[in-house]
């Protein structure tokens, strides 16, 4: 999944999603290997930290914050929320508004990764598309 599609999906999500957790992990450079038992998976972050299960990035602020720490240098940032709405921001990037703080922070991490990977920011959603 490309950065634009993933960011848009996170901003439009109405709640946590295991599919989005998986898309985020793969986009962010986590690797997965299957265990011997059916359905068993082991994930490794880009910082070489092992996870017994796929972290619930979109459900938990702790998991989303850990995603930030596992994938990015120590950018300054912020996170705010009120009932039914949240926003997040890393470095000087655009604010990402989503349904929950976890979703907003995930979107900010994906945006930041994409901006540091691509010199061409046209691969990202334009302001009017958000």
């Amino acid at each position, binding site marked *: 999944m490309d950065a634009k599609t993933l960011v848009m999906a996170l901003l439009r999500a109405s709640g946590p999603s295991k599919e989005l957790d998986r898309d985020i992990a793969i986009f962010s450079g986590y690797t997965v290997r299957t265990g011997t038992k059916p359905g068993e998976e082991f994930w490794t972050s880009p910082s070489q930290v092992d996870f017994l299960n796929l972290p619930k990035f979109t459900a938990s602020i702790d998991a989303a914050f850990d995603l930030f720490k596992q994938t990015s240098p120590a950018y*300054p*940032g912020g996170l705010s*929320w*009120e009932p039914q709405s949240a926003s997040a921001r890393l470095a000087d990037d655009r604010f990402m508004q989503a349904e929950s703080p976890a979703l907003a922070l995930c979107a900010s991490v994906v945006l930041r990764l994409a901006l540091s990977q691509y010199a061409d920011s046209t691969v990202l959603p334009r302001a009017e598309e958000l």
Partner: protein
Amino acid sequence: MSLQPLIQKLSDAEEPSRKFDTAIAIALGFESFEEEGTRKVLWLHPHSKTPTRIPWYTRSLDEAKELLDVILPNSAVALSWTAEGLFYAKIEGGDACRGATGPLAICIAALSYHNSIR
């Protein structure tokens, strides 16, 4: 009882602690009791009155958010951090509070605001 001594301890803390979690829970009105037979200590949530564990308020952002949901439901909250790893939390209408970690900053902001409006 003023929450100020607890707020001060949390402000001086460098890391999360189960002792702080317990002190916060007691300040919120959690009550402990010993389960008959097993002599295990259980806690009663002040609102739901169901036996529960004490949340990891000072370790987890999600559980620090729960603290806010209990004492200041529907509030607007902001958490920010610097590249050097300083954390600041602010509740709408309250002051920005610094903590060594995100959860500590949220706990300090929540208790300070709660303390100021009681």
